[in-house]
């Protein structure tokens, strides 16, 4: 709950205002019977019609005042709860944006989504409710006990004994339900996760006719959710009958002992009636109280889940020695005996990799599936940090550079193209928000996608769906390349980004890239691409097997020869 309170802090004044208006309302409510009594005594008894009407007018005035405070309370309460929810979501999102990849493995996306929406809503509703009735219930309980004491202290002792017992029961229930509610939210995560997977993989599911299989999975997840929700709610709903039972039980006890007191002459019948009345009133207040407590138990579970996210330690961030003045000037890249393994795994993915890529050079990275090519790329923008050795850009260790400075000067085109909902223009400008339309078009021309875009009905304003499905694989790749080029990067990383392009388009693209004075690293499977590179790195099982120009490798490296022949020899022999 600490998290919730810290989020409420900035709204201290508004909370105070909300509570103030609740109290005003409550006061009016309590005053009405008093005015009523006065009306009977001063007006009706004395036959004074003027007094009756005057007091009546006062009552009307007061109810209108209460109404006004009620409305104001509504404004303040909802302002506080909605803003708190807003702040929570913003901060959660910012925190998540600062997550390193290792952090993501501990929080699946579907769970983060539920936390940011459902859990926050849960807390938001509880805060809203609390601000409107929070004070009422305890005040009513307290007031009733005090009044009972004034009337008859001996009989009131019974109430004093009962209240702590009830309180204990409610807290116990709350703890119990709180745990269950936490589990409920986790099951909701699971439902969300199956749903997300099904949406993303709908083609595969349809293609393999696994509707029933997936449906079973979902049914299982949502059955789990249902069962846990039912048991959590049933626990909380136990509160109400228990409160009724205990409070009503105390009425019986009061009547029983009251009868002795009356016989003994230490209490009047009227006093017994009054105390029974106060007990009934307390029952009402207690049931509100139990409702609040139950809402709290649910909010507490949600707030813990949110606190978990905030507590997550970011595993990769700017170090203290990072120097914001360090920029990429030349783009010379040096890998100095770099080794790497993914967090929480034991298998090294890269071992002792050393090479240099001079400014403006074009380096092709070649290697078998799983040999560590993509991993090598991820180390440059520091998605992960190296475990051994170091990476230098312009002779500076990249760990000394600010993360965003480093990344802003790198153009990255990932293997799996991910475009965002929005227009073609938005998606290209995504790489550089400040890009002018000319720059966007220029990038598109270089990425060989301009002509395609111009053929769309709305050209650069054409909308792309989720993941840009209405484009072909190759079109998506070229758009992603344009997105990287529009940054005018010093370093360009192409992770097998031309796999879906036909060779002709690819050649045009590579020629256009010459206009950019950037150091280019590209992963590729195609010999035709490698042959254009200044240097070729050949990886095998995480080690750098060979480096050099096409010619050199063709002479010295057996594996390279084998790859070469695998692509060209067959058709040679075929044609000959």
């Amino acid at each position, binding site marked *: 709950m600490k998290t919730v309170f810290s989020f409420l802090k900035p709204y201290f004044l508004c909370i105070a205002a909300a509570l103030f208006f609740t109290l005003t309302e409550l006061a009016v*409510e309590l005053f009405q019977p008093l005015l*009523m009594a006065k009306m009977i005594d001063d007006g*009706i008894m004395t036959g004074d*019609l003027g007094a*009756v009407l005057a007091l*009546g007018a006062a*009552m*009307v005035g007061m109810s*209108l005042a*209460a109404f006004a405070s*009620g409305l104001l309370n509504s*404004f303040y309460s*909802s302002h506080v*709860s909605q803003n708190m929810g*807003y702040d929570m*979501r*913003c901060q959660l999102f910012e925190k998540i944006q600062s997550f390193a990849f290792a952090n993501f493995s501990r929080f699946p996306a579907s769970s983060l*989504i539920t936390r940011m929406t459902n859990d926050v*809503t849960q807390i938001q509703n509880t805060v*809203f409710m609390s601000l409107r009735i929070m004070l009422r219930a305890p005040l009513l309980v307290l007031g009733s006990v005090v009044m009972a004491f004034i009337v008859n202290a001996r009989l009131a002792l019974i109430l004093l004994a009962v209240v702590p017992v009830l309180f204990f029961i409610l807290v116990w229930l709350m703890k119990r339900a709180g745990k269950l509610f936490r589990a409920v939210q986790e099951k909701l995560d699971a*439902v969300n996760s199956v749903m997300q*997977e099904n*949406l*993303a993989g709908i083609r595969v*599911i*349809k293609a*393999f006719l696994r509707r029933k299989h*997936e*449906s079973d999975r979902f049914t299982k997840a*949502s059955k789990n959710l249902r069962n846990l*929700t039912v048991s959590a709610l049933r626990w909380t*709903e136990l509160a109400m*009958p228990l409160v*009724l039972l205990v409070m009503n039980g105390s009425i019986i006890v009061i*009547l*029983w002992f009251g*009868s002795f007191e009356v*016989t003994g002459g230490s209490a009047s019948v009227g006093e017994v009636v009054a105390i029974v009345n106060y007990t009934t009133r307390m029952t009402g207040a207690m049931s509100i109280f139990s409702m609040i407590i139950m809402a709290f138990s649910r909010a507490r579970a949600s707030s813990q889940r949110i606190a978990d996210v905030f507590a997550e330690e970011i595993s990769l961030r700017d170090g203290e020695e990072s120097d914001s003045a360090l920029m990429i000037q030349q783009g010379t890249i040096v890998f100095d005996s770099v080794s790497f393994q993914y967090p929480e*795994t034991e*298998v090294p993915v890269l071992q002792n990799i050393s090479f240099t890529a001079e400014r403006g050079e074009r380096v092709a990275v070649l290697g078998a599936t799983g040999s560590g090519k993509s991993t090598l790329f991820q180390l440059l923008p520091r998605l992960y940090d190296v475990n051994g050795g170091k990476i230098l850009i312009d002779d500076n260790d990249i760990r000394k550079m600010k993360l965003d400075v*480093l990344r802003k000067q790198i153009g990255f085109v*990932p293997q*799996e193209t991910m475009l965002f*909902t929005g227009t073609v223009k938005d998606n290209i400008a995504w790489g550089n928000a400040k890009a002018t339309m000319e720059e966007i078009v220029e990038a598109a021309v270089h990425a060989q996608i301009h002509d395609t875009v111009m053929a769309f*009905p709305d050209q650069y304003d054409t909308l792309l769906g*989720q993941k840009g499905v*209405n*484009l*072909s694989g190759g079109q998506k790749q*070229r758009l992603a390349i344009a997105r990287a080029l529009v940054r005018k990067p010093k370093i360009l990383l192409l992770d*097998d980004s031309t*796999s*879906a392009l*036909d*060779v*002709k388009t690819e050649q045009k693209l590579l020629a256009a890239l010459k206009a950019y004075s950037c150091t280019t690293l590209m992963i590729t*499977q195609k010999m035709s691409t490698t042959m254009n590179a200044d240097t070729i790195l050949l990886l095998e099982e995480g080690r750098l097997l060979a480096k050099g120009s096409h010619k050199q490798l063709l002479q010295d490296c057996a594996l390279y020869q*084998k790859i070469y022949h*695998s692509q*060209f020899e067959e058709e040679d022999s075929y044609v000959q």
Partner: protein
Amino acid sequence: MFNKLAEPFRHQKIDLQQLEQAEDGSVDKAQRKAKNTRATVKKIWGYLAAEKWKLSFVLLMVVVSSFLALYGPYLVGMAIDDFIVTRNSGGLLRLLFGLGAVYVVHSLSVWLQNFWMIGIAQKTVYTMRTKLFRHLHKLPVPFFDKRQHGELMSRVTNDMENVSSTLNSSVIQIFSSILTLIGTLIVMLWLSGLLTLITLLIVPAMVFGMKWITKRTGKLFKIQQANLGQLNGYIQETLSGQRIVKTFSQEQKVISEFRVKNEQLREAGFWAQTISGFIPKLMNVLNNLSYAVIACVGGVLALNNMITIGVIVIFIEYARQFTRPLNDLANQFNTLLSAIAGAERVFDVLVEKVEMADEEKAAELEQLEGEVEFAGVSFSYEKDGDTVNDISFRVLPGETVALVGPTGAGKTTLINLLSRFYDPDCGSIFIDGHEIRDIKRESLRRHMAFVLQDTFLFHGTIRENIRYGRLTASDAEVEEAAKTANAHSFIMNLPRGYDTVLDQDGGGISHGQKQLLSIARALLADPKILILDEATSSIDTVTEMKIQEALVRLMKGRTSFVIAHRLNTIQKAEQIVILRDGELVERGTHRSLLGKGGFYSELYHSQWKREVPLPG
């Protein structure tokens, strides 16, 4: 300080009219029909009614508890008047036992009604949720291409949650409120007709006020849920594109976009909550006003000796009793509205036209030779402009067809049409002479296996992912398929082998390895028609060479459609179909096409041949 206190009144007004128009513009007629509140309530009721018996039990318990809630105080009064005043402790003891029994039964009935109602409500929610899910699976692929996934997810979680929390309490409360209302009304009429009339004066005022409020909240709730859905969609999309966000160092941009969406949600939420918060306040003021009016009128009447003071006092108590259930009803009505806003968004999806509605005459296809014919097929994703135009060719059983052409020429589209992810705008596709529209989709796809451009793996172990191709396959068969696909060795190198759990996006293994797994998955399915869409694009050529043999074995005896850029894959095909800008330009074997000297041979010479310097 003043500024802070003034903040709640500075929220931006939401123009409901305008939003309504915008909303109406974006939905088609069928959906607008569903946006009918009454229809939605009816539908929810339909789900609840499935539990008729339990629901009647709940209502019975509500009757019992409402009655006992009134009967208890009556007995207490009796205890005081008849026994304590008369000091008859023997009689009191007996009565108190009776009272105890009443209280116990009361608590029990309250507990039971809640106990059952929770069961019913959650079952309803569960049914709706699974129904929504099943329905989603029946929707055609284009539906998913056009929607943000996170937005759809919000319907399954956030909107359903709204329905759930309302159903838990509202049904009981509404029913018990109505009961209490009727009971009190009868007693009041019996006490004084005139004062009852005055008390009832608040009803029109209440109706008027409620109309004002619910007219706004009803819409606001809808906007709020829609905004929440959009926010959900945005979060989902950015999280799945986190790698790009990070490498492009665009966290700030994403955060500020998020803020805008979050703000929209806050504003809608603020107004929805504030205005619905007016309801209890409205009820209170009406309550208090009637209190004042009754006191005044009663006072005047008493002065004229028309009623006694005692009647006024009792009456005010009853007037309070009368307005409390009214108050509850008003509150419940509002929660109901928020649930309806949620439910409507769920039902919106349920009225989406399903894909699986196979044509009436659609038949099962038991045996398949594998002959495929495209006859004058045209299709476009958008309404204007053809993606593929008038495509005709025939493939004999067991043949391999390579689809070749520049990017965007329509290769993947042909595959989408063949598998009926989309239906052609005109022309027909025949399999073994049957129009594919006459074959049940399930039956059609059962004979096909796909290795698609975007390899999608599920959260689960590697073994489970391969087995996805054929759920009944044994472990040995799974491993056999992995061996054939050349995936076995890398799998065995993973610390947990086949039991390695893959993240949702298959993280932890490389893209090429994912492709190997999806090939193994297709191998296991053992289909008559095999579709390989860029199946080996991310696999290095040496590995590809190794699995090539497996692929050749796989394609033997099956009709195969292959989209590839690498020549060595293409030239082995019995038939090469060349596409360009959605048109079929050439067709033939590698040799015949080369001899023809057309587009293919141009492609061949410009792309594959020219760049090859002689070794050495």
